[in-house]
């Protein structure tokens, strides 16, 4: 796998910007405002975590970033230019691994590349050798049903990585895993990220996860989603969950984020 995302050249990804983003579902009186006046800017190579209550429109944010959902012109910018059609830089990963049960591990990993239009052979070319990077060596020809939850998520992560897209949209990717596996996957993702610094927009509702992973942490409000606070996570990398737990700065950040989530004003808005 060519691990390096395109960082140079004219078509390279440099930034993603939401500017006064608004989005509603439905029309007229039934319209549900999902996002209102949301501002967010990502530079290439940044790891930004998005923290917010369930159903606050986080997934809408992703669909607007990828171009799957149509945005009001001028509110979603790529490299400073308004997005036109699909964003050619994004690749998704979800809470549910969404692996195809009839495909082997290798074929699942190649799926994204096939979607990009590569031939089957081309798509698999260097993937077999890269399985080891994701802790999947020896499992190329197994089926998803034979794998543990953590392994399945690594297959899904590798499938997303293998698209070589520079902007990863990770939608609560570890949300369905048990606590121990989740910590392992978080540290695994951090190591992967250290290798090629792709841009990551990571949705979660786990405060610890948001602090452990992100360069910046964005706390969203209840629906309609808007940025309540953007917090710079000034903890040195590489980070490890077990070492952070007793770090005074981490404890401080965590307390601050928790207080934001329990803000009485916020409760009032949601009620």
């Amino acid at each position, binding site marked *: 796998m060519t691990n390096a995302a395109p960082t140079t050249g004219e078509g390279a990804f440099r930034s993603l910007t939401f500017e006064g983003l608004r989005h509603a579902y439905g029309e007229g009186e039934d319209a549900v405002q999902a996002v209102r006046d949301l501002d967010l800017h990502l530079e290439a190579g940044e790891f930004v975590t998005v923290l917010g209550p369930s159903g606050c429109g986080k997934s809408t944010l992703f*669909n607007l970033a990828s171009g799957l959902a149509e945005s009001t012109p001028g509110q979603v910018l790529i490299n400073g230019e308004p997005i036109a059609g*699909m964003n050619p830089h994004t690749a998704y990963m979800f809470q549910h691994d*969404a692996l195809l049960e009839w495909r082997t591990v290798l074929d699942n990993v190649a799926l994204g590349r096939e*979607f990009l*239009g590569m031939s089957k052979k081309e798509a698999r070319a260097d993937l077999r050798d890269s399985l080891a990077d994701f802790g*999947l060596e020896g499992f190329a020809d197994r089926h998803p049903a034979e794998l543990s939850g953590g392994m399945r998520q690594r297959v899904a992560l590798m499938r*997303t990585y293998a698209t070589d897209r520079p902007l990863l949209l990770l939608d609560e990717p570890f949300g369905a895993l048990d606590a121990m596996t989740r910590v392992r996957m978080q540290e695994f993702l951090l190591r992967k990220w250290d290798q090629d610094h792709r841009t990551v927009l990571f949705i979660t509702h786990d405060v610890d996860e948001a602090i452990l992973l992100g360069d910046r942490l964005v706390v969203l409000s209840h629906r309609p989603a808007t940025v309540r606070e953007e917090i710079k996570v000034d903890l040195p990398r590489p980070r490890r969950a077990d070492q952070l737990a007793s770090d005074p700065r981490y404890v401080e950040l965590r307390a601050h984020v928790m207080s934001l989530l329990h803000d009485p004003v916020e409760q009032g808005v949601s009620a």
Partner: protein
Amino acid sequence: MITADGLQTAPAPTAAPGEPRDGAPTEAERRAALRRRSRRRKATATRYGLPALVLLALLGLWALLSVGGIVSDLVLPTPFEVAKSLVDDRAVYWMNARVTLLEIALGAAIGVSLGLLFGVMVGLNRGLRAALYPLLVGSQSLPVLALAPILVLWLGFGIAPKVVIVVQIIFFPVTVATIQGLGAVSAEVLVFGRSLGASAWTLFWKVRVPAMMPHVFGGLKIASSYAAVAAVIAEYTGAEKGLGALMTRANSDYNIPVVFGSVVIVTVIGLGLFLLVSLLERRVTPWARRADEI
């Protein structure tokens, strides 16, 4: 550091306990495989042994009732009479079974094709679904067998009206299963694909079709058990040849062993079709879990 589920924190690729790294199974794995095989053998014995026992018991009961004279042989022939008829009259049975088999084959080919086509159209298009799904369900309430005599009037005594009835019976379960199968696709895979620019065509063949196949086979199994019965009942209403025609003639001649012989053959055809579909299912969708396998 190696963690329990094979994750490495250091680049050194060492085997985690219990996980094959270079293809060589560990001792524990070999033992587990042996245990699995022995369990499977026991499961196989239960799967085929038990039904065989029940079948033997039922045959025994039948022999007891008929040979013992508890039920008159005018109504219930002995198993031996039926067996004798199956051997002695095999030419007659074969001549009629051939026609019934042809009706089933044609009806199945047309019914399955139409069911898949219609199911995909309705399953992928919300407008079509709203317009056609109620009609589809309604069509199943049509008393087709009651209409069979009219079909004979329209299409003659040949195989055409029987094929139409087999098509009508098979069409419904296949269509419903196809629609359900298309709905069972993971929405996330579709989002993943679309965001990478995959066409609807690509998503259809790479994701939707394989994902719907286990459901389609569920529908095919139901259809396969109906098909033979539908053909035979269609033949009741007017046919020159076919197992249904043979049964009505034998019945009016009080040739009860032939009626029972025909029933045995129809049953075997139905079972054969079901097995055929099950075999095909195992070939086409080996990944799907099968709880209803025989």
